[in-house]
């Protein structure tokens, strides 16, 4: 098995690990930023309170007595069914078991402050109790409040008057919420499930069984309740919403798959390639999920939903490649992949960058997946290549294709064949753009910050909940949660909260509040009150006798007896006392909870209608105190997003411009891509405006999706236009059709979401579907026309040649020019050496990574040096770019006038060079493009030796002069050859005068080279040195200045001997040139990563 195949096998290990680790989180709230107090509060509330555990059965009757009787019958029937339910309450538990109220009252006194208990003890002092009891009797005689009469009758000692519970005392006696409406015709039965359902199917089965029992009960009772009975609460939501989601997903996936298959078959007439594509998609999906499992361990189910987007992008890439292959079936598959690969890669980078910047967990997974997909076309000889080859190749064989391919491409942009179509496209651009702008300005889609879009559509459970809220009320209250590591911490915080709440109520900023108060166990108070309560227990008999003496019966003392018994059992334990009978449990379930981090107390605050809540919520909330409200979630998220949105958008915009620039390297096409994004976005806004859609928390996620898709389409289309030299028809046939198919499948996939039972998902599907169509219309029909106008006429010949022949660049990079060099000189003048070198190395390395074709040239050039070892050549190429950056930094420093002596490892003695020249016989310092060959000039100047540099003209205007001036400041003269026919004569004259001339030999100008052997390969070298030797008899001295960590090393090789008289024929001069190159071969082999050639140098 080849090494790369083993690599794929090894990759399976982390993938398997990732999949094994992967878990799914069904809580949508976990997607939201947890640092937001609104999110944290809602999570706590949803998890521990909010009735999320209980089922609520509601029923209605015209007569309150009938409603009451029906509710009682249902409750009794459910209680009688063994194992079917936990606790069932159809009325307040203290009404059903009034005697059990004693425990909660006793607990209230234990949790009260010592001062309050002291006052109780003083009041119950048997010596003075008769006065208190006489007052109670008098009040019993005079009160007109039936509730007070009842309370005084059965609580003559006032044990229910726990100060912190007195506000809630009325709820202990009154009918009504939360079990019935005020008029009694609407009733609610609270049913606790027998277990916590983790699986929605189990919840659904339980509900089914319970519904049957209720129906039978009501039939037996012949209660005229009929259709008014409804079910709501946590288990119903779980069953209903999960079942709806499952149905939606199945319908969406099945529907999308069918539509995709149908469309593919209609366009291509085959299904087999689609099946291969599906296999690839499955691998991509599994890889992405495995990556998510490895990186995060736990993914939200919404992430899984976004996997559909990933598949959509992957489908796009596959379809584009397939369509391109169909059109260019005469080309080798590798070449077609090479054409399409940049578009796929840059599309993947763009989309991945956008998602990464969104800083959602799902974004990172999607980004990883997109990058994986983008990388696939770049992997050569991969195992998947077989599958992709099969995908694009198998069904091409023997396939009768319509004549849709371009036979040959002309090297220049062809004339506009369809001027009328372009006119129509322009007209459409103006008209549609103008209309859309008008529509959007007049009626832009609004942003709905409420949680309404997150609700299911047509949900019976939600309808029942709305009905319940309308009848029972409580919708306007906000939940207050106080958390802490233990009961004491929460108790201390509750005291502070109570003071704040009292102040807010006094100031009229809130209407009312219900807090746990003395229902919350306060260990410190319980401990402090032990002594007082013990003393009351000691006096128990005397107290009760005093009440009897005052005329109260034993019936009236049952509550008091219960309180004393509770105190007795509480004092028998040293732990914090929690009441535990049915009444206490029911009350405490609504007010207290425990989790892994500690305990939580809950209360309710009713805001003043119409008044702002932000200020007082800000006063209440702290690190451990939260206010929970779904209505506040949307605005809080939007505030959070708004704050970062500007920066995220700027970052995304910047990243987009960067990736587009790296893709196209032409501002015209970057501009066109941005314009396509803007135009398709405008079209989408216009569609939303006409359709009456609004933005909401769910469909705002369409923005990055559509940004990625539109960027993809524009990149594919423009690169296709380049490949087809602006021929719109050819580009449309090869790429446009694929993009339309992509958009159609995307629209189908998202469109099926539009039928979802969840309003948010439905809106996401509609917006994404419409957006994909707008993007496709823009990219396929309008963008080609824009491209012809703006970018098509600027095709350069070498680009045309490169596009048509697939050849690599044969000229220097466009970056190498006057402007960049001048900028570099200015920077080098001020930057420290070390910093400049680091900067130069990194920038050059980045260029090497991004400029793929240039890097390939360098690798090709290095292959013979590395003996054909591609991997070694690739590594050396990487180092070469960094070393070139260092070289440039040093060269710019030198040309800016800064001293460079300290950059040399060791300076040779001047005599070494002085001996080279003598009157009448000059010398040529021969060099290759290795190290910093330019540094020979200042070195010789320092040694008192004048040097003439012979060079070719620099590209562009002013560049040659700029460099001449730079050398001149060091006393180095420049002679530019190539354009001037008399330049050779001048060089000869100087040599005859005894000058020292520097000459590069390894990259001759056109027409001045001869073929020699270098590294066992034919190599074109400059014959100028041999020509000059024949003409002047000068010395030929090879030199090199490679860079080492210790500094530049000056390598002066032995003089190349020759017989002047034998250089008469070209072959002799070729042979001399061969000798010269042979002398350099060891130096090049020793420093291959400093042999700087960025254009192809090998003829073969």
């Amino acid at each position, binding site marked *: 098995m080849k090494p790369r195949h083993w690599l794929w096998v090894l990759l399976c290990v982390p993938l398997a690990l990732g999949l094994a680790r992967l878990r799914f989180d069904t809580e949508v709230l976990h997607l939201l930023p947890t640092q937001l107090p609104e999110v944290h509060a809602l999570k706590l509330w949803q998890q521990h309170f909010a009735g999320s555990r209980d089922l609520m059965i509601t029923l209605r009757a015209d007569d*309150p*007595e009938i409603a*009451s009787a029906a509710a009682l019958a249902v409750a009794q029937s459910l209680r009688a069914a063994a194992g079917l339910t936990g606790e069932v309450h159809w009325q307040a538990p203290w009404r059903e078991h009034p005697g059990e109220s004693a425990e909660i009252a006793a607990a209230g006194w234990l949790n009260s402050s010592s001062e309050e208990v002291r006052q109780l003890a003083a009041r119950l002092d048997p010596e003075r109790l008769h006065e208190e009891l006489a007052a109670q*009797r*008098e009040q*019993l*005689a*005079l*009160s*007109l*409040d*039936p*509730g007070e*009469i009842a309370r*005084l*009758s*059965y609580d*003559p000692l006032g044990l229910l008057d726990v100060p912190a519970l007195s506000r809630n005392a*009325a709820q202990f*006696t*009154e*009918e*009504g*919420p939360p079990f019935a*409406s*005020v008029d*009694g015709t609407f009733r609610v039965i609270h049913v606790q499930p027998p277990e916590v359902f983790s699986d929605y199917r189990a919840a659904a089965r339980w509900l089914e069984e319970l519904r049957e029992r209720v129906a039978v009960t009501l039939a037996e009772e012949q209660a005229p309740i009929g259709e008014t009975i409804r079910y709501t609460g946590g288990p119903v939501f779980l069953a209903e919403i999960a079942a709806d989601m499952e149905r939606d997903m199945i319908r969406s996936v099945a529907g999308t798959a069918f539509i995709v298959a149908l469309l593919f078959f209609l366009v291509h007439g085959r299904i087999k390639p689609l099946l291969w594509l599906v296999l690839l998609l499955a691998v991509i999906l599994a890889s992405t999920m495995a990556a998510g499992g490895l990186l995060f361990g736990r993914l939200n189910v919404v992430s899984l939903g976004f996997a559909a987007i990933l598949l959509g992008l992957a489908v796009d890439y596959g379809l584009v490649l397939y369509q391109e292959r169909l059109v260019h079936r005469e080309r080798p598959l590798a070449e077609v992949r090479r054409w399409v690969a940049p578009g796929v890669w840059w599309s993947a980078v763009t989309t991945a960058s956008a998602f990464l910047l969104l800083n959602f967990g799902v974004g990172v997974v999607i980004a990883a997946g997109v990058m994986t997909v983008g990388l696939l076309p770049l992997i050569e000889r991969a195992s998947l290549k077989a599958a992709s080859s099969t995908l694009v190749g198998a069904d091409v064989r023997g396939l009768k294709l319509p004549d849709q391919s371009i036979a040959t491409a002309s090297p220049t942009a062809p004339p506009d064949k369809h001027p009328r179509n372009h006119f129509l496209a322009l007209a459409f651009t103006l008209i549609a753009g103008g209309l859309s702008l008008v529509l959007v300005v007049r009626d832009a889609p609004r942003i709905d910050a409420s949680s309404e879009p997150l609700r299911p559509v047509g949900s019976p459970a939600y309808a029942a909940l709305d009905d319940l809220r309308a009848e*029972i*009320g*409580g919708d306007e*209250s906000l939940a207050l949660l106080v958390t802490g590591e233990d009961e004491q911490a929460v108790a201390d915080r509750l005291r502070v909260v109570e003071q704040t709440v009292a102040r807010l109520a006094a100031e009229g900023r809130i*209407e*009312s509040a219900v807090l746990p108060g003395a229902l919350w166990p306060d260990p410190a108070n319980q401990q402090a009150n032990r002594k007082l309560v013990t003393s009351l227990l000691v006096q128990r008999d005397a107290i009760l006798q005093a009440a009897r003496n005052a*005329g*109260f*019966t034993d*019936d*009236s003392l049952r509550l008091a007896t219960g309180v004393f018994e509770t105190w007795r059992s509480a004092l028998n334990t040293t732990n914090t006392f929690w009441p535990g009978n049915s009444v206490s449990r029911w009350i405490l379930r609504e007010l207290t909870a425990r989790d892994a981090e500690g305990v939580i107390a809950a209360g309710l605050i*009713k805001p003043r209608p119409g008044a702002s809540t932000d200020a007082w919520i800000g006063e209440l909330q702290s690190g451990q105190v939260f206010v929970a409200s779904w209505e506040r979630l949307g605005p809080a998220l939007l505030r959070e997003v708004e704050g970062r949105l500007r920066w995220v958008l700027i970052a995304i915009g910047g990243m987009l411009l960067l990736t587009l620039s790296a893709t196209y390297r032409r501002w015209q096409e970057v501009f066109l891509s941005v314009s396509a994004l803007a135009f398709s976005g405008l079209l989408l806004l216009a569609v939303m405006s006409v359709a009456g859609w609004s933005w909401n928390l769910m469909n705002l996620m369409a923005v990055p999706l559509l940004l990625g898709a539109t960027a993809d389409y524009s990149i594919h289309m423009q690169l296709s236009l380049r490949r087809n030299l602006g021929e719109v028809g050819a580009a449309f046939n090869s790429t446009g059709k694929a993009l339309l198919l992509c958009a159609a499948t995307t629209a189908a996939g998202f469109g099926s979401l539009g039928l979802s039972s969840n309003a948010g998902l439905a809106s996401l599907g509609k917006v994404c579907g419409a957006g994909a169509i707008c993007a496709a219309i823009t990219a396929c029909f309008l963008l080609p026309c824009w491209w012809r106008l703006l970018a098509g006429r600027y095709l350069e010949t070498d680009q045309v040649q490169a596009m048509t022949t697939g050849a690599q660049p044969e000229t220097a990079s466009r970056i190498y020019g006057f402007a960049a060099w001048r900028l570099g000189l200015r920077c080098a003048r001020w930057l420290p050496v070390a910093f400049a070198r680091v900067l130069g190395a990194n920038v050059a390395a980045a260029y090497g990574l991004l400029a793929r074709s240039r890097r390939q040239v360098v690798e090709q050039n290095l292959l013979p040096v590395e003996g054909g070892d591609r991997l070694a050549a690739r590594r050396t190429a990487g180092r070469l770019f960094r070393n070139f950056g260092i070289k440039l930094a040093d060269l710019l420093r030198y040309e800016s006038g800064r001293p460079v002596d300290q950059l040399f490892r060791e300076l040779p003695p001047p005599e070494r060079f002085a001996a080279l020249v003598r009157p009448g016989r000059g010398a040529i310092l021969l060099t290759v493009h290795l190290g910093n060959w330019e540094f020979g000039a200042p070195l010789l100047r320092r040694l008192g030796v004048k040097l003439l540099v012979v060079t070719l003209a620099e590209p562009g205007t002013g560049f040659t002069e700029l460099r001449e001036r730079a050398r001149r400041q060091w006393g180095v003269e420049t002679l530019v050859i190539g354009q001037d026919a008399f330049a050779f004569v001048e060089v000869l004259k100087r040599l005859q005068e005894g000058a020292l001339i520097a000459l590069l030999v390894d990259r001759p100008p056109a027409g001045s080279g001869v073929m020699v052997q270098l590294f066992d390969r034919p190599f074109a070298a400059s014959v100028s040195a041999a020509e000059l030797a024949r003409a002047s008899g000068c010395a030929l001295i090879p030199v090199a200045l490679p860079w080492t960590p210790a500094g530049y090393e000056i390598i002066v090789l032995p003089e190349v001997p020759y017989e002047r008289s034998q250089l008469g024929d070209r072959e002799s001069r070729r042979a001399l040139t061969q000798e010269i190159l042979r002398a350099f071969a060891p130096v090049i082999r020793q420093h291959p990563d400093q042999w700087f050639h960025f254009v192809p140098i090998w003829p073969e």
Partner: protein
Amino acid sequence: MVSLCPHLARVGRCLALATLLGVVYHSHAADSELLDRWFAAQAEIKTWSAELVQTRTLKALKDPLQTQGRVWFTMPNRFRWELGEPAQTIALREADAMVIIYPRLKRAERYALDEQAAGQWRDALTLLEAGFPRSRADLEKQFKIESFTTTGDAAELVLQPRSSRARKLIAQVRLVIGGEDLQLRATELRFADGSRMRNDFSRAKINPPLEEGLFTAVIPEDFKVSEPLAGRAR
């Protein structure tokens, strides 16, 4: 020879039965007529005042509680109850609210009489308004007439609240009416737990002139006034 005694005895029994039935029939007819006359008389009442002794026999207490008091009433539904000498509890029904004043405690409570008046205060109104129906229809709207019997010179009307909520607190209301003068002599409320509250009226005056200010709550400034129903959520 046939004995006449059994025959006579049988006839005598029939006669006795007929007489009894006749008496009963006559009684029912007379009672019904009395009740109608009482309702007619009620319709003539514009104002009413009386002194009262309220006796509360509670299950929680061994002995009943007795309190002296006074009551004033004016059509259509304004009243003023005072319990205790001097008044320890004053209950007033104003146009849109009921006010309870506790002079000794320097406290007053105001209860708005709108649709949202909590259930127990509707029940409290029953305590205070029972005995002052404007018409039979008015009475039967709120109560079901269980019985109306005459004993001696008084008649007793037994009523059951129609509202199931009210019945949970007040099982029965009894009105004692004078047979001759058709004056309300007593009201008795029997509570669901067996407790009773009876008001025995004396020195009743029909249509006495009453000051309007009698039914207006005058609360001293140093009294603490509360509205217990104001902050109560539905």
